[in-house]
């Protein structure tokens, strides 16, 4: 597919992006079967050097971005993390660190804080060590995460606990909330696994049943009033059981830019799964230029690309047609309405797929990084 769109869609009214997701590396000591990294991981040898990342941060600030999320893989494997945090702070970006925490120690955390880091998000695989370490494929990981979470609040930094839910831990959502409160987290993300990348490979091993989902949803909603003013709750309802899709990333190319370890610039971290896309790199053009009229950004920005039923739908500037990667994964066509939507012709097929996968109870994980059978 070639891209024949006008190069300057909305150039005069386009708002600047809100944040850049800086995927410093794909390396990670964990092997979560739902990792959002692509199946083809960038090796260390392809990672950008410190100077290139600093240039990216300069350009993010120039483009009007307010925040940077240092992420990965595991960003702590980069020895220059402190230097990059300091640089981001110098150019006026608010800095978030999204980490598995297993490589962090107190000295480094203090150095990062002193470099200007504001917020640390730690993902937990479960509420107790045995299940958590099985999912992460890393022995001792859970205990380490809890210790680092305490260091984060002790250092005066904001802490988010990211609880990733799936079939094997969804019944413990209450325990996740209690744990986040015990750890003095200011925020909890109750995030159901998103099924693309490694998550899609492992869908039959992860997808919860409808009953599990209803029980979880009921439990979360019952807790919400009491959590008000104590902890900020970001609750992401799982798509597969929804009747309407979510505005993925706040809408394609509306809020975020994603830079991969080797410097490719994406509208969302799963965008590389879509065939025929033309991704630019930070070595070719600036982030502002790519934001304005990069072919991958304009391709699904706004409503110009939409076929029916989205084209005539009054929700099309609310959910922006849902997720392109999900449309590809489920309907075989990235241009289609997100099949999670009940107006999509593929919706019934998705429900059938989902029910089959949710019933496949003894499917083993294929850990991140391991080859197909």
């Amino acid at each position, binding site marked *: 597919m070639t891209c024949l769109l006008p190069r300057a869609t909305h150039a005069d009214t386009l708002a*600047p992006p*809100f*944040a850049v997701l800086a995927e410093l590396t794909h390396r990670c000591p964990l092997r979560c079967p739902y990792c959002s990294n692509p199946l083809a991981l960038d090796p260390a040898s392809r990672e950008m050097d410190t100077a290139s990342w600093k240039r990216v941060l300069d350009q993010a600030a120039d483009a*009007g971005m*307010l*925040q940077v*999320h240092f992420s990965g893989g595991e960003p702590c494997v980069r020895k220059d993390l402190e230097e990059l945090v300091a640089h981001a702070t110098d150019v*006026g970006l*608010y800095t*978030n660190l999204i980490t598995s925490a297993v490589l962090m120690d107190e000295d480094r955390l203090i150095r990062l804080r002193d470099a200007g880091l*504001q*917020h640390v*998000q730690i993902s937990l695989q479960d509420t107790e060590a045995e299940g958590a370490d099985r999912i992460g494929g890393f022995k001792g990981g859970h205990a380490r995460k809890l210790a680092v979470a305490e260091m984060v*609040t002790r250092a*005066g*930094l*904001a*802490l*988010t606990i990211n609880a990733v839910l799936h079939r094997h831990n969804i019944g413990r959502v209450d325990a996740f909330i209690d744990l986040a409160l015990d750890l003095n987290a*200011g*925020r909890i993300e109750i995030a159901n696994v998103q099924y693309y990348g490694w998550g899609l490979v492992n869908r039959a091993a992860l997808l919860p049943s409808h009953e599990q989902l209803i029980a979880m949803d009921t439990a979360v909603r019952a807790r919400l*009033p*009491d959590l*008000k*003013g*104590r*902890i*900020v709750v*970001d609750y992401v309802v799982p798509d597969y059981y929804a009747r309407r899709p979510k505005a993925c990333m706040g809408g394609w190319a509306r809020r975020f830019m994603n830079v991969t370890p080797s410097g490719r610039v994406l509208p969302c971290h799963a965008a590389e799964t879509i065939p025929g896309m033309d991704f630019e790199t930070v070595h070719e053009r600036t982030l502002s230029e790519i934001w304005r009229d990069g072919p991958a950004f304009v391709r699904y920005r706004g409503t110009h690309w939409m076929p029916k039923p989205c084209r005539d739908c009054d929700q099309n500037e609310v959910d922006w047609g849902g997720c392109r990667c999900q449309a590809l994964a489920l309907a075989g066509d990235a241009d289609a309405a997100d099949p999670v939507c009940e107006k999509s012709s593929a919706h019934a097929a998705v429900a059938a797929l989902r029910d089959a996968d949710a019933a496949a109870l003894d499917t083993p994980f294929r850990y991140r990084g391991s080859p197909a059978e």
Partner: protein
Amino acid sequence: MTDSPTIFEDSRVRLAPGVMLRHDRARDEWMLLAPERVLVLDDTALAVVRATTPRDAGTVGEAITRLAAEYDAPRADIAADVLEMLNDLLAKGYVVP
């Protein structure tokens, strides 16, 4: 179930960990930057945040008295607005008691 935290006139408030007040030049707006979030402040919200959250701001009641004098408005009106706004900011995680 316990009562949700609430801010009263005798409370002291500060910005929550990881929350920063900043002027953004690109958009020419004041905002609170917070973990993965941003809140754009209008003039009133900015005045409230500036009056109540610095370390030397004293109690919320003292800040209300100062604001009432500064804006030459009935103290009760200012008090109602300030408490409503602070409790909203508390619920959204931008300030803590």
